[in-house]
């Protein structure tokens, strides 16, 4: 041992970069992506986006306020003029009525105090002013039955009015209108109000943008400080939670990733240690045999025997390598791509058939209970290999005359595959470590094996989002593969 995680990190191909270098790299990426309106800082982009959104919605609000108020007033005035118009035209159109009735009606309306804002003018067919409160025909009013907003002179007073002219039967012309000076005042008040509100909104928008930018920076700073520490080799650090749902989600994903990385790094460390220690033994053995034969063997038969045994040793080493690579391949998760819906029932009965003969040969009783169906999403071949490893172990450690149980059933949406023997078992203290690569219990040191069997079973279980549990079978070992069932 003695190799720390730091030194492993130091050996990783990617050099740890300085913060300045990271910023530089970030800028480069930003430039490559063209940025967003040429802004490379994400914080500034969010702030600007916020300010733009805020500004756009304020403008929209102001515009709608403006048009609904001004429009409503305009609409009301137009309605009043219209109804006045219609009434006067109706008067003029009466069989015994005429211009005189219209003049009388206008004069009586002008006499009433509530009609102070009303404007009328009647000219007869010759253009003589007959009635009304306008001083004369306003210049600019050229078309009949059309809306005009014009400056007018009203008994000597200048004003602004909304006007509409009509031709009466007989050729007389009439103007009906309303004084809109008051409305112009409202227009001014509203405009000034909106301008001031506009300034206020710009200020609020800018403040909001700055606040957003600083919040964003603070959130990212926490993540980047921690990430930088991790990049420097402190793999125990984790991102803080509680910043906000979205950032928490990101932090959880990154933390999961870090957990996995440190597990894999532990694995790498374990394996390199194990290779250094555990493979040294068989290599030494093979080497010794060959050297011994070269020095001391006298007959071709002795040479041949030494070479054959050395070849067997090498095959053993290759076997260990293959098992290691297989575990690494499984742990890398790439085989998930080949997952399919599998009913394990037949697979397990095939295993039973394959191993039953060996068990009987060794005076063991293989007791198999399989409840169908056992649907999982997985890799049949890997499950086969995992169960085969457990059965290999059970056969290896069982004394003649004992029972080995192979059972499988559904339990709460999980498929449980159990292999239990009545052998020496694994001491409670060792059970967790038994799934590590190259672990060999004291009691198993004298038997053949690489110490990789259970590590592979555990890797297969994990690949299927399941677990391998080792428990006491009083006496013996009870290994349970538990994986999610399908459907």
């Amino acid at each position, binding site marked *: 041992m003695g190799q720390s995680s730091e030194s492993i990190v130091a050996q990783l191909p990617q050099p740890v970069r300085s913060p300045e270098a990271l910023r530089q790299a970030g800028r480069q990426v930003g430039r490559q992506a063209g940025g967003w309106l040429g802004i490379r800082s994400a914080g500034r982009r969010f702030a600007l986006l916020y300010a733009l959104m805020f500004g756009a919605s304020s403008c929209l609000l102001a515009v709608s306020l403006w048009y609904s108020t001004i429009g409503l007033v305009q609409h009301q005035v137009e309605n009043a003029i219209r109804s006045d118009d219609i009434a006067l035209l109706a008067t003029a159109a009466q069989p015994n009525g005429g211009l005189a009735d219209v003049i009388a009606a206008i004069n009586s309306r002008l006499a009433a105090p509530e009609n102070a804002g009303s404007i009328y003018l009647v000219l007869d067919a010759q253009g003589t002013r007959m009635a009304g409160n306008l001083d004369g025909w306003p210049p600019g009013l050229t078309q009949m039955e059309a809306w005009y907003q014009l400056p007018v002179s009203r008994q000597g007073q200048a004003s602004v009015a909304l006007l509409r002219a009509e031709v009466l039967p007989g050729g007389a012309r009439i103007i009906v209108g309303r004084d809109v000076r008051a409305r112009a005042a409202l227009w001014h008040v509203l405009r000034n109000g909106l301008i001031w509100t506009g300034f206020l909104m710009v200020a609020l928008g800018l403040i909001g943008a700055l606040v957003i930018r600083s919040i964003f920076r603070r959130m990212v700073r926490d993540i980047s400080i921690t990430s930088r520490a991790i990049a420097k080799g402190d793999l125990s650090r984790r991102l803080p939670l509680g910043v906000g749902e979205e950032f928490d989600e990101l932090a959880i994903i990154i933390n999961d990733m870090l957990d996995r990385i440190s597990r894999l790094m532990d694995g790498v460390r374990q394996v390199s240690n194990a290779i250094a220690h555990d493979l040294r033994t068989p290599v030494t053995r093979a080497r010794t045999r060959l050297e011994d034969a070269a020095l001391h063997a006298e007959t071709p038969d002795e040479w041949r025997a030494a070479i054959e045994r050395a070849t067997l040793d090498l095959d053993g080493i290759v076997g260990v390598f293959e098992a290691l690579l297989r575990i690494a391949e499984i742990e890398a998760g790439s085989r998930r791509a080949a997952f399919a819906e599998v009913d394990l029932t037949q697979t397990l009965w095939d295993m039973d058939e394959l*191993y039953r003969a*060996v068990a009987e040969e060794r005076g063991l009783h293989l007791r198999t209970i399989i409840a169908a169906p056992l649907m999982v999403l997985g890799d049949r*071949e890997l499950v086969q290999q995992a169960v085969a490893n457990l059965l290999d172990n059970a056969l*290896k450690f069982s004394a003649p005359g004992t029972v080995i149980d192979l059972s499988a059933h559904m339990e709460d949406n999980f498929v449980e595959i159990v292999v239990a023997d009545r052998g020496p078992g694994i001491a409670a203290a060792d059970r967790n470590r038994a799934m590590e690569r190259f672990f060999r219990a004291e009691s198993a040191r004298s038997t053949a094996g690489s110490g990789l069997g259970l590590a592979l079973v555990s890797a297969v279980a994990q690949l299927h989002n399941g677990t391998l549990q080792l428990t006491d079978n009083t006496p013996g070992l009870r290994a349970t593969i538990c994986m999610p069932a399908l459907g």
Partner: protein
Amino acid sequence: MTMRILVVEDDKDVAGFVVKGLREAGHTVEHADNGRDGLFLAASENFDSIILDRMLPGGIDGLRLMETLRAQDNATPVLFLSALGQVDDRVKGLKAGGDDYLTKPFAFAELLARVEALTRRGKTDGPMTRLAVGDLEMDLLSRSVRRGEQKIELQPREFRLLEYLMRHAGQVVTRTMLLEGVWDYHFDPQTNVIDVHVSRLRQKIDKPFEMPLLHTVRNAGYMLRAEEV
């Protein structure tokens, strides 16, 4: 039975060892040490089978060579010999049109057995209803086995095991080949499961008779044949 075999392998030691071994086993062997020459030989001459390394110098690797060959309707059986031993690699090799896949390092006996099985397979593709080795007969339609006058009762798996052995009669069949061919297992169990099943089969087909048919070949596997080995 002499076969003409092409070995495309760039490693001098491995190639020398394989060529020598195959020649000792009585076969005629051609060797190419790069993909270009290998493809030229494979396309221009007739071989009973090709042993092909996956990674080759010369711009044409094993997979490319294989695909080019198959594109020319050349159906010569190909056995991939490769240091790429992951499941994906094996699947890729077989998908490209390879007939078998052996991972380095390998035992020569395994290679020889597989190459010979490959060549035989290419020749007996037609449907067969009856297999016979000496006085042992298997009827594939009625799924019955008899030796001489005596009927032999077999379990379904024993039947498949015997069928595999009979289809490869006169050839060495390794334990791995039996695991793959009869049980469809692509890994080696640590327990000698195959030996036990073969010895049970031997009890049924050989025990009561004078001349044994099922022989154990030391350091290699088994062979079913009528004459004495």
